[in-house]
């Protein structure tokens, strides 16, 4: 089964537990099979199936709940990017162990978590991410930048506590 392990990993990251992740993957495969005719050959299959999974998640109960947690700077999700600041903390992630990175990722709002997973874990191009999340390519860049900043901030907070 193509992408099965990866889809499951992604689903578990989104849903947060095994049962919901399994339901998500199962429903994704079912929808993909049923709607395979809607897949246009030549377009990105990976983006197509991740989009199904992600939309399925967003309409699930957990998905609706987590999507309601919108970050404060969400409204400013445009092409203007905040400058990255070179502080000692910015190189903190160099020593970021798995445990801390996972905790921080878990605490991120779902819109940041998913884009980080698609970019870093699935290694999707901006174009693929844009197709998966149905957002413009410019928004992919700015949201990614915010997501990385949010991850860094969360990790710092976690480390302090």
């Amino acid at each position: 089964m193509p992408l099965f392990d990866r889809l499951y990993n992604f689903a578990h990251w989104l849903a947060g537990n095994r049962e919901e992740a399994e339901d998500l993957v199962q429903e994704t495969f079912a929808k993909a099979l049923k709607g395979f005719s809607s897949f246009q050959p030549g377009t990105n299959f990976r983006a197509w199936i991740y989009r199904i999974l992600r939309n399925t998640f967003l309409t699930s109960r957990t998905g609706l709940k987590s999507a309601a947690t919108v970050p404060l700077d969400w409204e400013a999700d445009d092409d203007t990017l905040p400058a990255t600041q070179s502080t000692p903390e910015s190189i903190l992630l160099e020593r970021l162990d798995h445990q801390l990175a996972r905790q921080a990722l878990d605490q991120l709002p779902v819109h940041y978590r998913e884009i980080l997973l698609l970019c870093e874990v699935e290694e999707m191009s901006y174009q693929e991410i844009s197709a998966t999340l149905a957002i413009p390519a410019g928004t992919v860049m700015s949201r990614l930048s915010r997501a990385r900043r949010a991850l860094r901030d969360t990790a710092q907070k976690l480390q302090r506590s």
Partner: protein
Amino acid sequence: MACGLWAGKLDAYVDGELPPADERALREHLRGCASCAADSVALLQAKRAVQAAASKRFLPDAGFRARIQKTLATPRNPRRNFNWLPALAAMAAALLAVVALSFAYNRNRVRERQLMSELADLHVATLASANPVDVVSSDRHTVKPWFQGKIPFTFNLPELAGTPFVLVGARISYLNQTPGAELIFRVRLHQISVFIFQDRAFGTVLARERAGRELSFNVQSWSRIGLRYFVIGDASADDLEKLASLLKSST
């Protein structure tokens, strides 16, 4: 100052999404800018940290994998396992049948035409003959017994009183190597030949009933109780039709 420009592009840089020209320019800038260099290193490290922490973090268990595999396999089986061979064989067989049928049909058409022109020949030969009939009689009760022992079947002749048709006589005829009866009728000045043969001499060549023209003669043919009748002559199709129905009603 230039940092403000580049800072917004560091993410795209570490993601390898900058256009080649921008990438070269940014790399040049990083050599001289400690701040941007540090930021890009931090971004890259964070990227790798997330990758290492989140990849394969959760693995599906074997039971779930098997369950999905089963649900994927069940509904798709009919389509995926669709065996083309029997379908192809059936198509080929159907095609062959069509070809064979049309071939047989054409062959029948050819043989039917041959038969009809033979009949026309027989009719013409009779007209041209010095002795057109072997038994000269207008009495059906004379003609019918005359055939006894000469042909392997018998037939009935209609009562012609009150009709424009006159029985002239009869003779033995041969078609497809089988003997049969040829009856000669006259309507006004036209001569009409009626051939009667056993149906089995023609196999499936002839349609059960047919009417048409052969060498400008009108022809009617039909099959009754194992006998095949042909009515051929230069009389009108109407006259032939009347004679045919008289013959049919007598059998």
